[in-house]
Each structure stands twice: as C-alpha cells, then as structure tokens.
C-alpha cells in the first residue's frame, strides 16, 4: 500500500506537545443526562452513531445466520418459518434502522451546521426528538423480535402480511411508522437549516456537495415517508378489523398496497444512497487535491436523482400483474435515473484525473464505493428492462444487485465518512495501517459474498428460501465464506476506532489539509462550533485558498 512509500497528505501536529483542546463539545458538560437532554447537533450525532452501530451489528448477526443456513442445501439449521423471520429482521433492521439514518443522522447531523457556518440545526429539540423516536422504533422492532418475530419480509407485502401470517406484524409496522417520523424530522431539520442558516457569503453554489446531496435526500424523506406511514396504518387496520382495502375478497386491491409502499420505498433507496454520494464527493476531492470536476453537474444530479426517484417505483412490480403499458413507461423512466448516477461516477473519475492522489483509508473505501456502486447501478438497469426483469426478479440476482448498491455503495461510503471525519469528531486519528487492512478486507469479503449471488440468481436460485438444489452449493459456500470475511472487516473498525478514542494520535484541526469549513475549526469542535460566525469568501474545494491561508498563518506566527 502507498503509505509505505510515504506518499500522504496527512499532517499531524507534533505529538509531544499537541493536546486535545481544553474546551470542546464532548467535555463541555458532564453526566449522562447532559447527553440525553442535549440540543447540540454534534452530541445527537454521537448518540445516533452509537445506536446505529448497535442495530447494524444486530442486523449483521441475522445476515450471518442466513448465510449459515444457506451453507448447505438441506434445511438443517432452522425451520422454514424461522428462516423467514431471520431475513425479515435482517431487512427491517438494516433498511429502517441502519441504512436510512446511517449517514444523514450521524455525519449529516454532525457536519451540516458546521459546513454551513451555523451554530446548530434550526430545530435542536426536534433533532433530539428524532433520536428518541428512532430509539422507540428500534425498541419496538426488538420487541417484535423478542415476542416471536415477524416473517413478512421487510416489504410487508399484502395479502401475505394481512391475511396469512400470525406473527407480530403490527408491532413491526408500528416500529417502522415511528422510525419513519424520526427520519421525517431529520429531513425537515436539514431542509430548514440549509435554506435558513447559511452563514454570510455561503451561497447555494458554494456549499459542499455533501450538503447538496443531503438536501436532496431530505426532500425524499419529507415527501416520501408519510406515504409509507399511511400505508402501514392501512395494513395494521386491515389486520385488526379486516376492513378490506387490500383484500381482494372484499373488493380491495393488494397491488394498491404495493403502489403506495414502493412510492416511498423506491425513493427510500435514494435516501439511503444520496448522503453516501455526498461523502464520496468530499473524500475524492480531498485525496486528489482537486475541486470536484463539474461541481454544478454533481450538485444538480443529486436533485435530479431525488426528482426522478419518484417516477420509477413500479419497476418493483413488473411481474405482479400491473398493466403492460404502464410497465413500459416505468421501465423507460427507470433508465433515466441511471443518467444522474452516471454523471456522478464520471465526474468523480474526472476529479481523479491528473489529481495528486493519495491512498488513505477513506480514499480506499471511496474507490470501493465507485467500483461496487457502478456494478450495482448497472445491474439495476438490467432489472429495469422489462424482459430481463422477468427472468431475474425474485432471484438472488436482485439480492446481489441491491447489496452492491446498499452494502457496496452505502456502507463503504458510511465507513469512508466515519474514517474521514473521525479526527474531527473525536480529535484523534484512527490507526492508519490497520484501517487500510480493514478496508481491503471489507472489499474482498464483499465481492466474495455477493459476486457468486449474481451467478446464483442468473442460474435461477430464488430468494427467500431456506433450502436450494445441491448444484448451487459451491457458489453458496463461497458466499458464506465471503460473509465471514466481511464480518471480520466490519468488526475491525469498531475495535480500533474504540481503541483510538484513548490511544489515537492527536489529529489537530486539519489532518487531511481539506478545505471545508469544518476543518478550519478545532477538533473536536466547540459546542457553539464557531467563536464568531465565519464569512464564506471562496468557493468550495478551493485548495489555493487553503494554501494561502496556511501560508499567512505561518507568517503571522513567525
């Protein structure tokens, strides 16, 4: 790896004299209550980070159990309905309690006010409320799990969820309803903050792309989530009172559920991936020392993804008896979403071109993102084309596709972001070589897990079954082996990041020599972020500005 060559931009203060700033948001107040009742966006971000990590590992444990069952063709580890509960819990926890809030609620919460030059989000109390709602939602999900689980799949498909199952559907639906409001409040807070709290001189086109992508994702949260909420209310009512709105026997249409559900849940995919794309923009720019190529195009592509995201949901329903003509329209529109996504990938590639690239851990994760997201996105185009979809949908091909986007894309971006901003959040560096090892392990483990699943799906292995014909075993064993490696890759960061809290090198204000406003203040920041409100007098990603500033600082001190 390149660190051996000494090619790095990391510049840490002299470790013998450096220390963590005396006053910062972490030690500003003491005691558990000062955390639980805080209005500080940075502390809420940390609370979110802890709770999200907790749920990530629970969801991950279920993934491990699923892969363990699929190690052999016979149904030998668990019974069929237990297996159904496993993948349902894996889906619900990972989608609603990890992926949706992952980057926005942790990194977004921490960074958006600082990047805009504001002291806090517009509504600190609503921000805290959002975390508590998340906890209630998470608690109810665990409650549904402990009481005996739920086996609808994370999609709650009717009439399965309303008529044929006797598990804790209502508890799980309530959990998602509540977690949904947590996400609405986060999005609402971000939109208002971005519109109303920008510091003087911070125009729309001077905002970091991280903020742009969060803006787009927030629009989706605010506009999409309530439709999911009402849909889940209808499912609960259908179960409780048998009201018939999704019951064909009483004249209802089960597909109406699917329309309403996917009206949220397809945009939700973009809620999950857009913030990750924002992280990648920051990381790529910093570690290639160049302004993001085509800044405006990347900014607008975020908004375009958000807009187009609302016009494609029916591609989840192509084989379910929707109209052919409508499917044709939705298939064409689905192809359109590929355009803004491709704009981003191409622009990142052009940012790298002729940049002074260095290979610190966040950059490794970002490279992982670019490759895996491209594969995930392109297989999405296969699935969006009507003919291919009939063959591939409901097989492991689709499982591999969305895991490439969500795990290969979003999780890589999340880890890139956590590593990138870890020195800012804690004031300490993570151990560089160990983290590089973790990044590489994750990448290898990921590909080993999910590439075989593309082949399995293409060969026709259906998803959501706990047993399969013996000829698929080789590929399944590969996949399970990969999952083990992947698990190690995810355990490592948790361990060494915890270790670095006490023993990591002091990071100083700007270890990466990055240009964002967040890097110009102390690490960890003050509770009020800025001693005086900054005035933004340069474009985002202006490395010359940073160079001049650094020079001037040296002369003043000298």
């Amino acid at each position: 790896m390149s660190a051996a060559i000494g090619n790095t931009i990391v510049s840490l203060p002299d470790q013998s004299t450096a220390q963590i700033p005396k006053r910062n948001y972490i030690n500003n107040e003491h005691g558990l209550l000062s955390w639980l009742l805080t209005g500080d966006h940075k502390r809420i971000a940390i609370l979110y980070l802890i709770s999200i990590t907790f749920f990530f590992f629970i969801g991950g444990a279920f993934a491990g159990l699923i892969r363990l069952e699929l190690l052999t063709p016979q149904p030998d580890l668990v019974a069929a309905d237990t297996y159904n509960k496993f993948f349902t819990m894996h889906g619900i926890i990972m989608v609603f309690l990890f992926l949706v809030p992952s980057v926005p609620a942790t990194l977004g919460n921490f960074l958006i006010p600082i990047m805009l030059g504001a002291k806090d989000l517009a509504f600190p109390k609503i921000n805290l409320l959002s975390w508590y709602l998340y906890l209630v939602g998470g608690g109810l999900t665990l409650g549904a799990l402990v009481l005996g689980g739920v086996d609808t799949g994370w999609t709650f498909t009717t009439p399965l969820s309303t008529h044929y199952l006797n598990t804790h559907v209502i508890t799980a639906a309530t959990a998602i309803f509540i977690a949904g409001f947590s996400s609405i409040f986060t999005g609402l807070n971000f939109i208002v903050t971005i519109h109303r709290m920008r510091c003087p001189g911070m125009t729309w086109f001077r905002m970091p792309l991280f903020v742009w992508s969060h803006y787009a994702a927030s629009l989706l949260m605010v506009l999409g989530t309530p439709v999911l909420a009402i849909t889940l209310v209808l499912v609960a009512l259908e179960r409780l009172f048998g009201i018939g709105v999704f019951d064909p026997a009483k004249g209802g249409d089960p597909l109406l559920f699917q329309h309403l559900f996917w009206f949220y849940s397809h945009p939700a995919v973009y809620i999950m991936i857009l913030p990750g794309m924002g992280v990648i923009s920051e990381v790529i720019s910093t570690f290639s020392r160049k302004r993001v190529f085509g800044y405006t195009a990347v900014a607008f592509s975020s908004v375009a993804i958000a807009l187009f995201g609302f016009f494609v949901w029916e591609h989840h329903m192509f084989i379910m008896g929707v109209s052919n003509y409508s499917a044709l329209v939705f298939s064409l529109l689905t192809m359109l979403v590929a355009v803004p996504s491709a704009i981003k990938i191409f622009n990142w590639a052009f940012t790298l071109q002729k940049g002074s690239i260095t290979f610190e851990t966040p950059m490794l994760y970002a490279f992982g993102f670019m490759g895996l997201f491209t594969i995930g996105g392109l297989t999405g185009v296969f699935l969006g084309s009507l003919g291919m979809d009939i063959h591939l949908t409901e097989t492991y091909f689709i499982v591999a596709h969305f895991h490439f986007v969500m795990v290969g894309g979003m999780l890589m971006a999340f880890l890139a972001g956590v590593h990138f901003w870890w020195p800012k959040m804690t004031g300490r560096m993570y151990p560089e070589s160990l983290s590089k090892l973790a990044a590489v392990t994750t990448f290898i483990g990921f590909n080993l897990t999910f590439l075989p699943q593309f082949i399995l799906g293409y060969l026709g292995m259906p998803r959501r079954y706990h047993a399969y014909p013996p000829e698929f075993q080789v590929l399944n064993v590969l996949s399970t082996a990969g999952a083990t490696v992947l698990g190690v890759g995810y355990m490592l960061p948790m361990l060494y990041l915890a270790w670095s809290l006490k023993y990591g090198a002091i990071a100083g204000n700007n270890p990466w020599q990055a240009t964002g406003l967040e890097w110009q203040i102390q690490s960890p920041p003050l509770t009020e972020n800025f001693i005086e409100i900054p005035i933004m007098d340069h474009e985002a990603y202006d490395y010359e500005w940073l160079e001049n500033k650094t020079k001037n600082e040296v002369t003043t001190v000298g």
Partner: protein
Amino acid sequence: MAHEIHTDANDPSNVTNPEHAQHHIVTPLQYTYVFATLLLFTGITVGAAYVDLDWANPVIALGIACFKAVIVILFFMHAAYQSRLIKMTIGSGFFLFIVLITMTLTDYISRAWGMW
C-alpha cells in the same frame, strides 16, 4: 436560481435574499371577506350536488373544493404574502400528490387493455 446573486457579506444570516419576505399582517376585514366567500361556496357546493349535471357534478364539487382550499391557503395561511420559497414548498407538495395519483393511474387505467 437567483440565490447566488446575493452574495454580499453584509447580509447576516441570509435575510435579504429572495427566500425572505416582508412580514405582512392580514386584517380582520380581509378575513371576513374570505369567511363569507367560504360560506357562500359551501352553499353552492351543496346546492350543485342536488342538480343532475352528469359528469360535471364531481368536477364542480372538486373545483369548488380546490377554490376554497386555495383561498384558505392564500389568505388564512398568509401564503399570498410569503416568500417564493414557501410558495414553491406548497407547490411541490401538490405536485408530488399529482405525481402519486397520475403515475399510479397509468397502471389502473391501462390494466384492462390486455396484452400488446
């Protein structure tokens, strides 16, 4: 996008940009006019329902409801005096509602057309 024109640093917290509107107070007299209009159109909508106008019945009922909603939004909710940002926010809500309806209807309307 007109936002980037206003870049001067002497604009604390972006208050003079186009997202900002002067605070406007609507008088009770205006409210009374709105109130009277709403009552009048409630009467009309009930009356119109008892006349057989075939397909025009639901159109009229919805038209009147939309009209009433618009004047409530404009005057009771002060949207007429708000910044362009608020107006666009309201517009985007209804736009997305229309997207939900029309895009879903593409399925329901053409489902019975059968195969190619």
